[in-house]
């Protein structure tokens, strides 16, 4: 397996969406290829950091305001139906 082959499978590997044989081949590659090991490790970390970062959370006051606006428009739509 070449590094390019490894990269092609990286997404499925990280998502655990590959068959056992391919997984074993990828892990064998990781045993000796430090560059791919680093790429795999830092890509996994990238995903986890974004997932855990709580970027763009909706503040409670804005949430209430938006919901109230939505439901008021839905009510108007109902009354005109």
């Amino acid at each position: 397996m070449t590094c390019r082959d490894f990269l092609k499978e990286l997404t499925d590997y990280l998502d655990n969406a590959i068959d056992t044989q391919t997984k074993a081949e990828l892990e064998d590659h990781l045993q000796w290829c430090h560059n791919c090991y680093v790429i795999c490790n830092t890509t996994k970390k990238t995903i986890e950091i974004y997932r855990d970062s709580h970027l763009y959370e909706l503040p409670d006051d804005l949430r209430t305001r938006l919901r109230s606006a939505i439901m008021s428009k839905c009510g108007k739509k109902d009354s005109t139906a």
Partner: protein
Amino acid sequence: MSTIKQVNEPEPATEELALVTAAKQGDVGAFEDLVRRYDRNVFRIAQHITQNREDAEDVVQDAFLKAYQNLPQFQMQSKFYTWLVRIAVNEALMKLRKRRPERFVSLDEDVQTEEDSMPREIADWSPNPEQQYNQAELKDILGKTIQGLPAGFRTVFVLRDVEGLSTEETAEALELSIPAVKSRLLRARLQLRERLNKYFKTRKSGDGNK
């Protein structure tokens, strides 16, 4: 090396099914419960795509209103959330096009070659690189970094990796093929990793704290 943890389902499917059925029959309270259930997700997706707070607020309102108006046509063959995400993504892309009329924005935007995503810099990161920064600095870094991705890559990454939709659900929500979702996801992940290198790579001694 372990694989990444999968995000749990937001809510049990049967409960959602009951709410959607009631809302389809005109129960506004049931629809409000659906709004409560997914407004945070829709806001995050909208903000990631539009990169603008006011636009994201508009998208939340427009997407839910459109969902409400189109509920009678919703066939319940897919999950309500996937259907809602599809509406929200379309609304968000429309906002983005209005704001940047000089540049056509599409999910099919795929001008970069595979070479553009090939790793250039191989540097390991410290075990908890995010701890080098305080919360506000980290958010600023992550926000700036993801803004640099093409909208099509950004959207796939956000749906799959931040919101936890499956590859199939992402494909359905974005009307893309599964191979297209996988290809964009790989490139989005690799490009983000490459861009975060400068903030997170292991410092040599004498480099200072950051």
